């Protein structure tokens, strides 16, 4: 078990290092940050001074090392465009995105587990077919479209909930929930539809397993056996999908943030690209990559926790 975690951890660290190199290299090879600060008619002298000030006259390896080393210590530098600390900005924006994604995933699970279970239990009956068909519909609808429709109906037509914007939960908890409900729902509906299908098929795989028969022979109903024993076993493939989806949702949240005017990491990335703020883009991409790697790491560990059999495996 310890060895297994250590191995996963090593993979995590190695991927992180490789990713940081890739991110740095990609962005260093493109364009001249000094020019993007000074504009197209900058004089060569001004460019030279700015390059020095930005440390661009140093060898590339040194630049990489100082950036990566500071990043490790939580310092992503100060933007030459906005003069704000990047880590501080990323932190605040990321929090919004994390609220959005986690809330969306919880909503997805709240929808997917009952719907998927129902579809599995009622398999080959009309209810099951209807649930399956509905989830197919959900998969076909992109989250931002769900968002636009929800805004048009719930906010504009009925005037029940705000059309987006963000307030910090510390400032106004009720306002926070009110403003996040629609974004959560639009992410959750779509992701829930996808997850429901995985829950259903994973459960169906377990229905004919020996332990279900045993449970039934001990007096449980079929539904009872599936819910009490099947769900836990079915959760492993579902968890894998959840991990993969979490990363997709994190990146897909960019569009949802835009529709709901949420100041998350996605809109920060778009803004930073627009203002050619290379250092900020570098920091944001690195954080997103690190987060994605961390999610897969945690999912890997979670398998082991859920399934004792994996603890012995190599």
């Amino acid at each position, binding site marked *: 078990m310890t060895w297994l975690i250590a191995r996963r951890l090593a993979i995590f660290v190695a991927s992180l290092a490789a990713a940081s190199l890739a991110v740095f290299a990609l962005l260093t090879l493109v364009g001249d940050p000094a020019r993007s600060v*000074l*504009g*197209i*008619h900058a004089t060569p002298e*001004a460019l030279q001074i700015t390059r020095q000030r930005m440390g661009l006259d140093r060898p590339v390896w040194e630049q990489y090392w100082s950036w990566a080393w500071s990043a490790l210590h939580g310092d992503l530098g100060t933007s030459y*465009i*906005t*003069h*704000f600390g990047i880590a501080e*900005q990323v932190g*605040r924006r990321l929090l919004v995105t994390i609220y959005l994604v986690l809330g969306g995933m919880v909503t997805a699970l709240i929808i997917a587990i009952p719907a998927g279970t129902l579809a599995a239990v009622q398999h080959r009956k009309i209810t099951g077919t209807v649930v399956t068909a509905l989830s197919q519909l959900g998969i076909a609808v992109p989250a931002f479209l769900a968002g*636009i429709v929800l*805004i048009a109906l719930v*906010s*504009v037509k009925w*005037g029940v909930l*705000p*059309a*987006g*914007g963000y307030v910090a939960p510390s400032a106004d908890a009720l306002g926070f929930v009110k403003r996040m409900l629609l974004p959560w729902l639009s992410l959750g509906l779509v992701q829930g539809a996808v997850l429901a299908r995985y829950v259903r098929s994973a459960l169906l795989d377990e229905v004919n397993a020996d332990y279900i028969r045993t449970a039934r022979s001990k007096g449980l109903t079929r539904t009872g056996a599936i819910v009490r024993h099947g769900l836990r076993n079915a959760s492993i493939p579902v968890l894998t999908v959840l991990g993969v989806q979490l990363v997709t949702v994190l990146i897909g949240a960019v569009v949802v943030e*835009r*529709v*709901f*005017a949420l*100041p998350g990491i996605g*809109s920060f990335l*778009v*803004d930073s690209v627009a*203002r050619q*703020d290379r250092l900020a883009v570098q920091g944001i991409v690195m954080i997103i990559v690190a987060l994605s790697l961390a999610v897969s790491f945690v999912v890997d560990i979670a398998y082991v926790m859920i399934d004792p059999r994996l603890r012995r495996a190599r």
Partner: protein
Amino acid sequence: MKARSTQSVLVVFALAVAMITAACSSSGNDVTPASPTSGSTDSASSDSGTPPAGDATLSLGLVLPPDNLDFTTTSGVAIPQLLLGNVYETLVVQADDGSLQPGLAKKWDVSDDGTQYTFTLNEGVTFSDGSPLTAADAKFSIDYVKSDWTVNVADEMKIVTDVQAPSDTELVVTLSEPSNMWLFKMSTRIGAIMSPNHVDNLAKEAIGTGPYTVDPWDGGDVITLTRNDNYWGDAPAIKHVVFRYYEDAAAMNNALLTGDINVITTVPSPQTLQQFESNDAYQIIKGTTNGNVMMTINNAQPPLDDVRVRQAINYALDKEAILKAAWAGYGTVIGSHEVPTDPWFVDLADRYPHDVTQAKELLAQAGQEGLTLRLALSGTPYASAAAPIIVSQLAEAGITVVTEDMTFDNWLAKVYTDRDYDLTIINHAEQYDLTTVFSGEPDYYTNYTNPEVTRLETEGLAADYDTFIADFQKVVEILADDAAAAWLWAFPNLMVADANVRGLPVNAVGESLAVYHLYTEG
């Protein structure tokens, strides 16, 4: 015209901004609307008493967030739009007819040779940190533009050779040569008066003499201005004005519909106005901007170097029909460079009436029947909307037009820098850009050459005001006669607001979005 090359950078920037924001990014100081369609009763401060200072908050929706608060090192329109007039003030301010009015200076005198300006400052003016404004601060601000500003607009201050502050209220500025533009430029961002004690952290802290101060800002998409209770002038009615920046125009619309904001300061395209038009809860404000949408003709590119071909193109176009189809009729058809709010504007909209026969005749004279031209499009909404109808109108006159779609970066490289184009459509959004866009020398992408135009512009800038205006009016007429371009329409400033909001800056003519006359009724 030493500053010409740097001015051109500005225009590029203005254009760039126009691409992003559909070209109505900055708003002006209480200008009485010149457009016949505008709601003039709501606009100006001078004709209606602003109600007393209350505790209300108003939220404005905008599309282009500032990178920081420092326009001394960061170019673009977003920062002056937020700060100029509201937080930083200038010695002179621009009024509705384009004339200059007293600002921080209550009066000024110009020496007979036009090179020395003596300003008398208002007394009792303080910065929002409580320190008094003196002529020494004004001197510092002007010198600081020359010494520390890195943005290209700072070049406008190069003409200043000496600044003296003989007393606390007296400021004497000496120019190297007479200039009718310099004083006007002093009403733009370079004229902002700053405190010598607060220039170390301009990116995050803006301390001026204006009616509002900036609340601490975290770099996010919301910036709040709060009334400066020590303001030397009339206190604004609204206590907090919140600037909310949206990436998505639809999100901004929804924010207005659901009450998160009270005003959309920039409507990206008139199509979005439909949902507000029939709704009594909202008012639509139609004003003007400095922008003129122009089909630029490459004057150096044969056969477009033949004036008859350029005139034929102008005769072939039905500009009313173009405006109607492309921009729902919002705006004013124009016939030469500059817009109706400019002091040297001459109405030449009828110079080339729609006349296909005349167009064909001119083309025949020039030996250019069966002409094929390229039309470069950079993806702006107004250009994309106008292109199809222009193509079909030119086809009626026997000119085949091939459209070339490109990104704005490509447009900058190919059309603007390399001048490899026949026709293109662009909104020239910068105020008073006549001498830049048509200098009479081929130093701009229009490639327009006319020594007479150069002479009139150079002499006009150095002459007394009346001669200056007369010379520039002559230039405007010559440009129309030469068909130096096909001017289409003066770009409108379209806003939507809650029905009870008053005091909105209707016309977007200056660099600031003045919020200090806002109030709500009822």
